[in-house]
């Protein structure tokens, strides 16, 4: 186990810069998730930590060592790939013991470590099988087994669940998390799925266009997003955004005036009013909203509606009986209100 430190890390392909100077401190044993939309540079950053991509600028340290110029094999890391990258011509046991074998471990030691990993991951009955004879979930476990047998200082996961169906993804998510809790190895995990990020991470690094937008604990990012990008990315369904102006009477948007908490300030500023769907409540004295779609989920109801000229989504614990075209009244929870600068997207409140 070791901390990982990224200092002003940059990556360019010729003239094209893709990572613009990233600083992240990952503590020993921490589970950090790099999250962001496709093309934001999260996988590139992970591959730079692994040594599969060169570092154009800055410094990557694993423990006390700067690893910029070290080969992947010398960084004491293990990586789980998106497509598992299991060697098709080797059995499960051979796949898991492969790295130990090439690092000069004895046969007895390899067998012991492979059995230990197989035991943890429930792979003992499959040790003699080949990858083609396994299901997606089992292959994923073998990929994890291959990573843990070596007892590396850092685990790197590159979107490891993206090839699994939704149900298996939830199961594997839990398994990876419990594996981390059991082994306590520093983990860097890349995903574009913010639900994975929220449920698994000790710390989330939200990236966009090669830059870090915000670093923090999952609930900090949810409760106090630093900017409109993070606010829109974290949370599902995504936060509602309504553009308008802060006035003394409230938030003036096209076709509606929305309430603001007392002492908001910034009067006259062009801003974006952000409220999460789950922070809207049904209230007869609230703002009128015209319903366009009702989606009952059982435990909650998702309603798409228009306030003035803005379409927003509300999620209610109550069973909403309204039909499309009817009007309901909703009230935003002002304690959970987010205001962003219209020009920069930076948080105002």
């Amino acid at each position: 186990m070791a901390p990982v430190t990224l200092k002003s890390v940059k990556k360019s392909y010729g003239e094209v810069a893709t990572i613009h100077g990233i600083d992240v401190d990952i503590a020993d044993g921490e589970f950090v998730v790099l999250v962001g939309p496709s093309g934001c540079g999260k996988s590139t950053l992970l591959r730079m930590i692994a040594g599969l991509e060169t570092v154009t600028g800055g410094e990557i340290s694993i423990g006390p060592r700067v690893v910029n110029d070290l080969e992947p094999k010398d960084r004491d890391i293990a990586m789980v790939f998106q497509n598992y990258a299991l060697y098709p011509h080797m059995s499960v046991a051979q796949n898991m013991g492969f790295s130990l074998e090439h690092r000069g471990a004895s046969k007895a030691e390899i067998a012991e470590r492979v059995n230990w990993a197989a035991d943890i991951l429930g792979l003992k009955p499959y040790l003699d099988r080949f990858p083609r004879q396994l299901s997606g979930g089992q292959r994923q476990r073998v990929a994890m087994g291959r990573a843990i047998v070596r007892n590396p200082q850092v685990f790197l996961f590159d979107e490891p669940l993206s090839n699994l169906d939704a149900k298996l993804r939830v199961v594997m998510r839990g398994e990876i998390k419990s594996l981390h809790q059991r082994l306590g190895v520093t983990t860097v995990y890349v995903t574009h799925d913010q639900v994975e990020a929220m449920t698994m991470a000790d710390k989330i690094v939200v990236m966009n266009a090669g830059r870090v937008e915000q670093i923090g604990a999952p609930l900090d990012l949810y409760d106090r997003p630093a900017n409109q990008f993070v606010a829109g990315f974290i949370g599902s369904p995504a936060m509602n955004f309504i553009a308008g102006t802060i006035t003394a009477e409230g938030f003036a948007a096209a076709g509606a005036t929305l309430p603001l908490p007392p002492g908001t300030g910034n009067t006259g500023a062009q801003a974006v009013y952000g409220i999460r769907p789950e922070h809207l409540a049904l209230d007869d004295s609230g703002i009128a909203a015209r319903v366009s779609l009702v989606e009952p989920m059982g435990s909650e109801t998702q309603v798409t509606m228009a306030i003035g000229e803005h379409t927003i989504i509300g999620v209610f614990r109550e069973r909403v009986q309204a039909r499309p075209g009817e009007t309901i009244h909703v009230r935003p929870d002002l304690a959970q209100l987010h205001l962003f600068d219209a020009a920069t997207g930076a948080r105002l409140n």
Partner: protein
Amino acid sequence: MKTDLSPRMKIGLYGLMCVLLIPFVFPTWWMVTSSVKPISDIFAFPPDLWPRRFDFTTYQKVFELQPFARQYWNSAYIAALVTIGTMIISSMAGYAFARIKFPFANTIFMIVLLGLLIPSEVTIVPLFQMFLKWGMINTHWPLILVPIFGAPSVFATFVMRQFFIALPGELEEAARVDGLGRFKIFWIIALPLAKPALGAVAIFTFLHSWNLYLEPIVFLSSTNMFTLPQALTQFTDAYGGAMWNIQLAAATMTAIPVLLVFIFAQKQFVEGLAHSGLKG
């Protein structure tokens, strides 16, 4: 593929297939049966599908008239060396073109491919002069070196490159993380996975070398050094006329390894070409 053909359709289909098979099977049938016919029966019209008289002494005469066992060995060991050499060269070159980034890789590959457009007849005279200078005329070296570093190897390199291009990059990256260097990645990961393509390369290289005719007649002059295709033309009488039954007995024995290769390795051959993107 599952089909629901009626029995009548099946009979019709198999009948049609049998008819279409005749042009492919007849020459081989004619060669084998004629090899045990007296020479006068070979040109009987209409031809006899089954010999009226069997004469197996033709096979004995093949070995009496020429050092046929020696020639068989020449062909066999040359084909084996060419096959192994081509597999080594083409797999390494194919891997390099597919997986290693180096300046002008694609341009160099295109130039290498252009070698396929040059007919072997065009290069045979310069090659003869080159091997003459090196003192290799009437040795087997030209028959070994020319295919390994010539057009057959270029085609084999193309097949191997196409296979390695399709190999997932993550496998190599996983191997790098697991502690392997470039050569070990090639040797331990990429090459074992390339078995179908290597199999195809081995088959067509072996067949090409086994059937090689132009180069042996240019580079070899003593019967002890001859390979089989060249030896087949030497079964003639005092007036230069072909001794057909003996020649066909020799041809039958020459064809045996080719038939065996096709019977036992056709699946590998098709798989290899499919992996190489040469087959739809």
